[in-house]
């Protein structure tokens, strides 16, 4: 059995068990992990597979969240259509922004994504239609009564988020394994080689950018439903930064790494915030140490462990 399948099975069993045996607080935590996992996997497609390290991914998360809120309270749409609007809004923004940013590489890409993220934040912060810095309420969760789920119940909502996280993993994994995904990896390894082989590099990068934005938007829409409320906080640079931390801590380019990272960082954050109000300091320190000494992340460490085990036998 491959490490990937074992890890996936362990994650599913762990999620299922903690859903079955946890109380209200545990289910809330599980929802948070599931949402962050979707968000982190979407960034992994960009950063890990395509080599586009973005520091502005919160823009799409926030647009998803605001799209959910606006579709519900301004357009009067139901839960599921509102989620579709949220994802479509994030994709539309990615398409417009992406045309410009995919031309840039490395450090320049980092800078422009940071700037775009701050721009979207500044715009929402001032927008009267979106409630400015007060944020927006009036969000409805989808009605899934036909399959027996009452999403206003925390347990059912946690299940909904977990299933969506699993489906997102399957979808992104499919993308990564497809010829399209293989080419993204090829671009990551050597952009000029991919170009020389006739690959329209910019178009592929734009495709990855839009797909990543779609899943970030989905995560944002779920986050809006979790809180029944959205605010410009969803769009701040710390959100972009945290999700990048999650991806790097978990291990880039594996999709499973970000899921592990989401669980570890969320639990760590909760443990730390019990002990100190200054948990961000320690999260930042943890991140610096990971970048310096273990840039393959937790999943990378697992992989190495397995390889060493195999070499020994």
């Amino acid at each position, binding site marked *: 059995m491959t490490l990937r399948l074992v890890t996936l099975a362990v994650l599913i069993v762990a999620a299922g068990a903690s859903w079955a045996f946890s109380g209200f607080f545990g289910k809330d935590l599980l929802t948070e992990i599931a949402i962050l996992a979707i968000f982190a996997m979407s960034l992994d497609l960009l950063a890990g597979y395509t080599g586009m*390290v973005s*520091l502005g991914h919160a823009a799409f998360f926030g647009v998803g969240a605001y799209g959910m809120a606006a579709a519900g309270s301004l357009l009067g749409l139901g839960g599921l259509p509102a989620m579709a609007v949220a994802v479509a809004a994030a994709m539309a923004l990615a398409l417009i922004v992406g045309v*410009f940013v995919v*031309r*840039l590489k*490395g*450090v*320049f890409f*980092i*800078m*422009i994504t*940071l*700037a*775009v993220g*701050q*721009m979207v934040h*500044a*715009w929402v912060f*001032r927008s009267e239609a979106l409630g400015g810095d007060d944020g927006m309420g009036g969000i409805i969760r989808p009605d899934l009564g036909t399959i027996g789920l009452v999403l206003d119940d925390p347990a059912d909502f946690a299940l909904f988020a977990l299933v969506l996280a699993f489906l997102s993993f399957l979808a992104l994994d499919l993308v990564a394994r497809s010829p399209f995904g293989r080419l993204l990896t090829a671009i990551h390894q050597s952009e000029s080689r991919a170009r020389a082989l006739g690959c329209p590099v910019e178009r592929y990068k734009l495709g990855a950018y839009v797909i990543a934005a779609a899943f970030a938007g989905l995560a944002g829409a779920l986050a809006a439903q979790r809180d029944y409320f959205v605010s410009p906080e969803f769009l701040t*640079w*710390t959100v972009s*930064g945290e999700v*990048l*931390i999650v991806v*790097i801590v978990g291990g880039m380019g594996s999709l499973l790494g970000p899921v592990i990272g989401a669980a570890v960082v969320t639990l760590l954050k909760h443990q730390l915030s019990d002990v100190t109000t*200054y*948990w*961000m*300091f320690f*999260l*930042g*320190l943890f*991140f*610096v140490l990971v*970048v*310096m000494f273990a*840039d393959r992340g937790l999943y990378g460490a697992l992989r190495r462990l397995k390889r060493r085990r195999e070499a020994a036998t």
Partner: protein
Amino acid sequence: MALTDPAFVAIQVLNAFQLASLLFLLSVGLSVVFGLMNFINLAHGTLYMVGAYVGYAVAQASGSFWLALVLAPVAVALLGAILHWLLLARLQAANPMKQVLATFGLIFMGLDAVRWVWGSQSHGLEAPAGLDGSVTLLGQTYPVYRLFVIAVGAAVAVGLYLVLERTRLGARVRAGVDDRDMAAALGIDIGRLFFGVFCLGCGLAGLAGVVAAPVLSVYPGMNMSVLVLALIVVVVGGPGSLSGAVIGSLLIALVQTFGQVFAPALASVAIYAAMAIVLLVRPGGLIPLKGRS
């Protein structure tokens, strides 16, 4: 209030110069370090914030703004040296991406560190005696301190110009920016040069922080908007050059100041649009480096 009122326009131009002065102090170090090592310090805004806080603390303890003006940049330059030794020197062999990400982690640490020491509320720093009054210009009153901010930026720009263009050290830095490998082959120690420029840049960020403190207040999070503006200046002006930093600072400050007055909703977007256009049309910035395309 309109563009037809010359006094009003003059005041706004002065305000823009003041902002440009701060942006120049912040971006020049970032820009030259980027030109030398292809490395962007995302914690640069954090160093600016630390400069403002150290300046505030020194002024509180000693009662002297001037002492703060001297000590804060020195303290921040020292902090830069420590960062270089602990972090950047160890990551230098790896790709610049790792360095950039590590400095990103520092933003989180810096934010909570100042909250820890100085609390979450904002602090004010009084302008020193002699600079706390105002003068009348074209029938409008204008704070003297803002003119002082402009003077500091201009003085640093002239000083850096003389060092870069007229000294052997400056020639080495320019050579390193133009072609790092060739400069290294000629026996210039790029590592030491990088260290020196990095620390100087950190010190200037600290200077910007303490100079800005009496105009803008001192609070946790004051670093982020400024960091993004400084990055835009570096990108628009073109990394690696002094004149690029000067022109970029003036351009961004003018757009920002007049935008805020005439179309506040558009202003924040206009700056990023300016950055996007420059990146697309002239990827090397307005003042591209010779020999690089």
